[in-house]
């Protein structure tokens, strides 16, 4: 019966729409802008929309409602969009039915309390929140990204939730077990635990942060108790953990700290992301032969050893897991110092897509120029000077950077160089104080265009470097976006250079200028957009839009 009643409404609605359309059409000429114009079609088509022939009039609404109960979420959305009658039939249930599909988008706007609140609404919403958080937090791609937008609430919210799973003492572990009522599931008999399959994951982000500290007595006993309690927790629940951030802080015996960390790793068979800090014994070597063997972590794909000062430990981890890694964050000095043979290093990372190097020195770049890694994203985070060879090698620094980049010509999609290249000793090419002269300087003739490089990120002051400018114009022909940091910039006229870039680089869509995080509120981040991106004319000057910090 309701279906029959709904028909006149539908007809009315369509007529109303038609009237509106006519009015819109009348106003169109006046506006000279285009426009949602009209609902077109023959009378037959309009009639079809109104009567929704896909709805079988024989079945009463109650029957349809019964049929709809057996549909999947995706099918329900199809039903909602099929015709007005079915849409209206599901109207009272629409929010319930659509929430699972809508919630993942809305979560991006939530902070930590909102995320937790959503987990309490229903089992379905809890599952969606947990899945969304976990797929973000244990993604190698997301973990590798450097974020400059503090307006993104979701990453900050997930970070805050992740911080809750920090274990630095026996008391932390005990409170966790007590709060979540896990005591009855913990069993010191590991064999019993292996047969106990019905416990649920207590780690919302599927990640934990742990501190390994082994001070001398009398506190040693306390830390040994912490080790045992965390071991017990991980024996039972370690398989749920996919990301570990471990800090080894041991002024007396770092080997002992690393050994404990390895024991923890043995309880985490499904680890995907591993970040280790071990920098308390600066520069001191650790005898890796004395360490227990590292476990086989088949899912591990992200390794951050940038804060392990002992080269031998960093080498142990990279050599053990190198062939399976897609993402690596390490010290430039590790590449310089590693005892890994050059031939082995060359093919050590056959799957490596993302590499961030912190503290890059000339020797790092020389080694990087000779490896066979399929890098897609290369990030030089900071640069160091090698004292012993400064005079000779630093003169070639820019060239070394470009040589290293050239090694990944066929695969690189994004290049980030966090340095003001004008402050590095420059080859004698041209007056690099004038960007226009730089723009007109002869290009490198032997440079092959990088076919996949779409994104370039650097300090804006690097635009004053002739060599860098030539590199952009000659090698980065396919580039679509350039991001410039401006926090330490003394470069005065980036707009002119930006116009030249739009002119010389046909695929360039946007240039971003990012103020540093220390800038006061109200400073604008500027985005230059090619004006032709929305118009039909083939060429044109760049348009400029400025977005306020939110």
């Amino acid at each position, binding site marked *: 019966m309701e279906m029959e009643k709904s028909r006149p409404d539908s007809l009315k*609605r369509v007529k109303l*729409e038609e009237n509106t359309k006519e009015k819109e059409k009348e106003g169109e000429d006046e506006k000279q*802008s*285009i*426009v*949602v*114009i*009209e*609902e*077109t079609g023959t009378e037959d*088509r309009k009639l079809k929309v109104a009567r*929704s022939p896909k709805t079988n009039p024989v079945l009463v609404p109650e029957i349809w409602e019964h049929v709809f109960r057996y549909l999947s979420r995706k099918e329900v*959305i199809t039903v909602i*969009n*099929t015709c007005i009658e079915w*849409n209206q039939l599901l109207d*009272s249930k629409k*929010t*319930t039915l*659509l929430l699972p599909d*809508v919630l993942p*988008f*809305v979560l991006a*706007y939530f902070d930590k*309390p*909102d995320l*937790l*609140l959503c987990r*309490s*609404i*229903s*089992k379905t919403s*809890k599952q969606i929140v947990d899945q969304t958080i976990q797929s973000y937090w244990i993604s190698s791609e997301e973990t590798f*990204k*450097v974020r*400059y*937008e503090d*307006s*993104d609430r*979701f990453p900050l919210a997930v970070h805050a939730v992740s911080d*809750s799973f920090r274990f630095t003492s026996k008391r932390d572990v005990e409170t*966790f077990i007590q*709060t*979540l*009522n896990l005591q009855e599931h913990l069993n010191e008999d590991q064999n019993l635990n292996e047969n106990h399959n019905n416990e*649920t994951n*207590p780690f*919302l982000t599927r990640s934990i942060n742990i501190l390994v500290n082994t001070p001398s007595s009398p506190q040693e006993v306390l830390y040994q108790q912490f080790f045992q309690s965390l071991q017990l927790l991980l024996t039972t629940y370690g398989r749920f953990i996919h990301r570990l951030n471990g800090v080894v802080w041991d002024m007396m015996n770092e080997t002992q700290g690393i050994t404990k960390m390895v024991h923890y790793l043995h309880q985490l068979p499904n680890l995907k992301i591993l970040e280790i800090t071990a920098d308390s014994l600066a520069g001191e070597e650790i005898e890796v032969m004395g360490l227990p063997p590292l476990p086989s972590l088949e899912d591990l794909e992200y390794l951050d050893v940038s804060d392990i000062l002992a080269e031998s430990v960093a080498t142990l981890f990279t050599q053990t897991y190198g062939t399976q890694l897609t993402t690596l964050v390490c010290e430039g000095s590790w590449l310089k110092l590693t005892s890994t043979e050059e031939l082995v290093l060359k093919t050590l990372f056959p799957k490596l897509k993302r590499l961030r190097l912190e503290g890059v020195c000339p020797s790092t770049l020389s080694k990087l120029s000779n490896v066979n890694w399929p890098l897609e994203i290369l990030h030089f985070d900071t640069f160091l000077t090698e004292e012993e060879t400064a005079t000779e090698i630093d003169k070639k620094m820019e060239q070394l950077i470009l040589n290293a980049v050239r090694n990944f010509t066929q695969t690189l999609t*994004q290049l980030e160089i966090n340095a003001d290249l004008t402050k590095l000793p420059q080859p004698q090419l041209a007056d690099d104080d004038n960007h226009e002269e730089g723009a007109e300087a002869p290009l490198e003739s032997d440079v092959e265009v990088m076919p996949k490089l779409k994104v370039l990120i650097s300090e804006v002051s690097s635009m004053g470097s002739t060599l860098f400018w030539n590199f952009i114009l000659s090698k980065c022909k396919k580039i679509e*976006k350039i*991001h410039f940091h401006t926090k330490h910039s003394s470069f005065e006229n980036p707009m002119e250079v930006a116009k030249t870039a739009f002119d010389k680089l046909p695929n360039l869509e946007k240039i971003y200028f*990012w103020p540093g995080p220390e800038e006061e509120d109200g400073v604008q981040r500027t*985005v230059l*957009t090619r004006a032709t991106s*929305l118009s039909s004319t083939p060429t044109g000057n760049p348009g400029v*839009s400025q*977005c*306020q*910090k*939110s």
Partner: protein
Amino acid sequence: MALVRVISSDGAAFLVSQRLAKRSGKLKTEIETFRKSSDNSEAQPEIRIVTIRAEILRLVLQWLQQHQNDPVLPANQNEQDGRGDAEMGQSQWDRDFLAPMDLGIVMELILAANHLEVKGLLDITCKLVESKITGRTVDEIRTAFKLKSDFKGNEEEQTRLENRWCVEN
């Protein structure tokens, strides 16, 4: 003026300028694909959107028309390179636009804005739904979204304990 015919899931057709349509990432891609595959450069593209009904499609196009001179925002909040664009502010027109809509329509609009890659519309609709959750009690939210608790056994209590851990630590 170049036009494109956009057809909803229930068969209603909208004739839209290509300039306006290209403010939707999805429509822009479809138009460009049509251009590449068509021998006739004057031919009018026809795009069927099988997951969006006429009432919702009309609202999307209406919003696009109002915002046709805004800077284009990317479809995803964070782009591949990890840097997103700032969110657009909500205008009085946007508030008036959303005011008469019930929650079900707003949720349909979110799915449509996501499908058509209209970032600004996705922003304002998501924020509206967020406002129906933030600062409310669980019962108020269940009422607003017509939800029933589907927790079983001690699942709800366990969730409360997990949340408590996150709040207190």
